[in-house]
């Protein structure tokens, strides 16, 4: 499903970007995204994923370090996370969500603890979509990541709380639909 793949990719890109920033974590980076729930009534397709620590722990148990290097990396990444929250809405026509909906999330990201780290462009033939990615830092440590993707007919918010071991990061590139790119890690 297109929306599935998009949400998954955004989540994984979020994980990648989070991991690039720095190891360790500080305060809770969980966003309040419940206000978007009303969009479900207008959306032709809705995906609402809430993976809290308990579910992430369970997921980690099913991943094996022995099966492949990638799986080991994913296991490590998942083990470091406190939560993954995705709200993704796809509409039949443009203009179904408002600035207020987007601002309800972006306003939380104006907190000084959050900073915009990178501009990402997600292209579908002829269509362009703005994706803003933010990380929360606390005492030079990363506490979470947020991504807001606003397209003509879709809106996706990703919130990842927790950290990843930077050293495991590159194993993910080129797998699970993540494009291979020249990843530079600041040390």
């Amino acid at each position: 499903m297109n929306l599935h793949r998009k949400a998954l990719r955004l989540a994984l890109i979020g994980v990648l970007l989070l991991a690039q920033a720095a190891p360790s974590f500080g305060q809770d980076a969980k966003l309040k995204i419940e206000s978007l729930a009303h969009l479900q009534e207008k959306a032709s397709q809705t995906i609402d994923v809430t993976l809290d620590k308990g579910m992430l722990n369970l997921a980690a148990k099913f991943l094996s370090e022995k099966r492949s290097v990638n799986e080991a990396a994913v296991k490590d990444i998942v083990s470091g996370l406190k939560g993954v929250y995705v709200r993704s809405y796809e509409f039949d026509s443009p203009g179904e969500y408002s600035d207020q909906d987007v601002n309800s999330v972006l306003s939380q990201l104006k907190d000084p603890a959050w900073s915009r780290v990178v501009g990402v462009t997600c292209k579908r033939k002829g269509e362009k979509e703005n994706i803003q990615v933010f990380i929360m830092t606390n005492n030079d440590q990363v506490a979470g990541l947020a991504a807001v993707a606003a397209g003509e007919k879709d809106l996706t918010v990703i919130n990842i709380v927790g950290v990843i071991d930077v050293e495991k990061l590159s194993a993910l590139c080129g797998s699970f639909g993540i494009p291979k790119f020249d990843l530079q890690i600041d040390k």
Partner: protein
Amino acid sequence: MKTKAVAALLLGVSLFAGVAVAKQSDPYSRVIQQLENQYHAKKKHIPFLGLGNFVLKFWHPAGVEAVQVSLFENPELYGQVHGERFDSVVESAAAGSWRPVVREFSRRSNQWVYVYYTGEGKDMKILVVSLDPSNAVVAQVKFQPAKLAEFAQNPSMFGHSLANDLRNQAENPGSPGDLVEARTSDQHPEGPADDAPGVTATDATDGGTPAVAPREAPVLHREDPRALGYREDPASGDARPSDRSSNTSSNTASGAEKSIKLEARLINLNVSAVNHSGIAAPNLTKENFSVFEDGVKQNISFFETNQAPVNLMLLLDLSGSTSKKIKLIKKAASRFVDSLLPADRIAVAAFTRRFYQISDFTTDHALLKERIDRTKNLEGGTAYYDAMWTAMNLLDKAGDSRKALVVLTDGVDEHLLDPKDHPSKHSYEQMLSRISEDDVTVYPIYLDTEWYEVKRSGNGAHEAYAAARTQLYAVADETGGTVLKAVDDADLDGAYQKVAAELHSLYSMAYAPKELHSDGRWHDVHVKIDRTDVVVRARRGFYDK
């Protein structure tokens, strides 16, 4: 015999008690109850399910302790329970310690899926509720996560490893449940050519070149630009995605594969390479260039020669100060289009206080010239900074590399002449900052209108013109472009020709910075070449935001 009877009685009591407790506490039972009582749905019998659950009381394969599944078949069920009402049924049933994991609703396929879980540590329960137009499935599984995970790592039953069986099944393409079914939509199966000869990713009419997404139909210029044809943008810049015109065909939008690119990790550079006479230096390779950021040599990860097409925006200042020269401007602009390569994609726009897009990006140079020729005198104020901002927005959409902006202007934004009466939506500093971030090479062609303006409004205009010239040079310098002056009418044609030559001296390259600080600070970029007979010019740096 008596002992067996007592054991059977105890077993029966314990099973009944277990079921009774489950009925009281589990959302599974509450959802079933709602479906049966409120919606009068009829449960379909699932053979051997009771027997299976009985076995699970004593034996927990893969750590699974209980499986409860109910299937409802009722064509009218969906119509009765769809939408918000069913949401509240599931949500109230799963209230308490149950936590949502996935909730997916598709109005297109009329499918609603809910996954909840509860418990941590030794025992967990997962509830799955699925509703589609003809079925409702409610399932709940109780399991020991550690044992299930252990089974997933090494699947075996009665000492027999299932891993080999599963592997063999996966490797045998003819076997049921093979990988074709499991393939994600990220993969593109190569469809048999004889089945669908016309369905390919390339345009068959274009010698196999990639198909291009449909562009907007041409818009004709008429007398009143606001009412008649220009796609008018009040030079506001920041359009939200939903504000953009939707010129993508729906089938393209729904079916096309997305690619995701992390742009900010790459710093793009358009590098002009000319000899000392100003003639483009051909046949240079990546190895000829060295890129330094803050004195640290960087690895060039992308390189494109100067023969690659350019995405170019030609922006014409048709405000009051330049309107007297419109015939000359049009003639020179048309000749400029002629001097570009056939594959160059060009867009033309004009501005006064407003922004008028005369043509979208196209390689149809004849069409461009026709549009330029039809352009009428617009007159009005000069929102130069805002027009540049909007032009940058359009260039953002044009492509990824070799982007250039040629702006014919005197550079005097009204804001310079009268800041109070003519506020600008974007300041010069904002415009400069934006330009320094984008990988667009800007070539201002300075059309000198100072004499005309001084005559019209007095000597005070001299100061504004001096400031405007400084700003034009700064913009060119920041982006690796150059300012070309057209002091009199004859110069204009020559200026355009020089820009055309410059454009094809541009090499595109990109590097991933060895360090990204995200500190908003300026970082110097310096490009060197190992040829003494060639001079290079590129943007001077970027803000690491």
